[in-house]
């Protein structure tokens, strides 16, 4: 290979390296965003230990099995009046006071309304937690649920 050809190869390889570094830059940006989110969550938890404890109670009693992590809802519940899915828990602070919410959790929702009256009963209902959750755990759980909010973009659209 002539020296000129070699110089060309070196130049092309340098360009490729620059391109790879730019790509690495976007990988880095994504990782930075994740790290920031993680750090914020840790900060929140540090500032509001009760909510962090409540989140732990929420997973301890498997509420996430039906209401999904973070209370976003959406688990299939055939023919439920709430759109064939278990409802989310992101708007509780708008319709409940803490004592009412605790009562709701203690009682559960034994019958879930049907979407189509002639259709089958929805398979999932909300079990009563009367014998399981009480005292500090209940207070933490309620504090956590009351703190849930829909993500900023969605709040506007669902308000209408």
């Amino acid at each position, binding site marked *: 290979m002539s020296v000129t050809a*070699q110089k060309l*190869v*070196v130049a092309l*390889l340098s360009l490729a*390296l620059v391109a790879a*570094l730019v790509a*690495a830059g976007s*990988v880095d940006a994504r990782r930075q965003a994740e790290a920031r989110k993680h750090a914020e969550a840790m900060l929140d938890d540090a500032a509001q230990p009760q909510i962090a404890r409540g989140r732990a109670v929420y997973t301890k009693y498997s509420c996430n099995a039906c209401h999904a992590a973070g209370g976003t809802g959406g688990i299939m519940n055939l023919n439920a009046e709430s759109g064939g899915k278990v409802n989310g828990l992101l708007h509780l602070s708008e319709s409940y006071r803490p004592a009412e919410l605790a009562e709701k959790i203690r009682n559960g929702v034994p019958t879930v309304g049907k979407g189509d009256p002639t259709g089958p009963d929805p398979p999932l209902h909300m079990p009563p937690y009367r014998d399981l959750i009480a005292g500090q755990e209940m207070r933490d759980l309620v504090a956590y649920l009351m703190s849930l909010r829909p993500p900023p973009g969605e709040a506007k659209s669902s308000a209408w």
Partner: protein
Amino acid sequence: MSAHPLRRWLAERVPIPMEELRKPLREELPVHLRGWAVWLGGTPLILFGIQVVTGILLTFYYRPDPVRAFESVRRITLAMRFGWLIRSLHQNAGQLMIIALFLHMIRVFVTRAYRRPRELTWVFGMALFLLTLGFGFTGYSLVYDSLSYWATTVGTNLLGDVPVVGHQLLWLLRGGPDVSPNTLARFYNFHIGVLPTLMVLAITAHLVLVRLHGVARLEGDRRHETYDFFPEHVLREAAIALVLLLGLVVYASARPPGLGVPADPTFTPPHIRPEWYFFPSYRWLKLVPMQVGIWTSAGFVGCMMFWPWVDAGLERLAPGRRLGTWLGSAGFAFTLALLVWEALS
């Protein structure tokens, strides 16, 4: 010569005979180096360069203290800008360096370029190889995750079994009877202080010797053409450096480095293993009684270290039979077999 005013100014204050200095760049290399062999000696040097740069960057955030070491590695990997990239480059260039050294040794071995008068080039080369393994061992222990902690414990334990001085060696390395905060401080010091210093000295000696002797011509190669170190050889090395960097960056982006479990001195994980390049000795030491293992390993490394003379002795014993090449190849095959065996088990 119409020198640039700035250059004239500098030449007057710093009277270095630039023409003299440029001479080494005018080295003429035998044409066979244009081929595959060029990959081999320059590659570890390039990789060592990468290690120095990325290593310095890592020291900005790494904390050599058992309580904070793992946390600082986590921070580098997850939180610092491009920390994952730097860490990945440092890890993988280190691995590649060992492979590159292996290939370089094989090429020198096969072409018998270590023979008189180049024996000392080989000896310094072996020193470089052992130093590189030292980098690998001390570097791995710095991560302070469960696996690296226990690999360090088990690895240093072996030294305790060395006859006569074993106890002192162990104490020297660990800074006490057990793997302790002192151990991490010492390993860190070795990794970023002692070993790099020795490495730079040995690389200098190695390359000065190579340069003084000129690269050996291949046996039976009748070609007398040469080519220039500059720019042709340098361009080739630059191309290799770029390919290596490119590969390392792409790999890092595709598979960013992960994190293990923090070290817990009270819990021994079920599968303790050193890094792959220690597999041969690890397997061998498990296979034979400890004292036998230690003596044979020392003999093996000694044989490699002084190979030019061992080979010359064998040549005198049976001229023209290339006993040395056979013996060396057998030793290499055996090492490789032990490595594969350990890797598969």
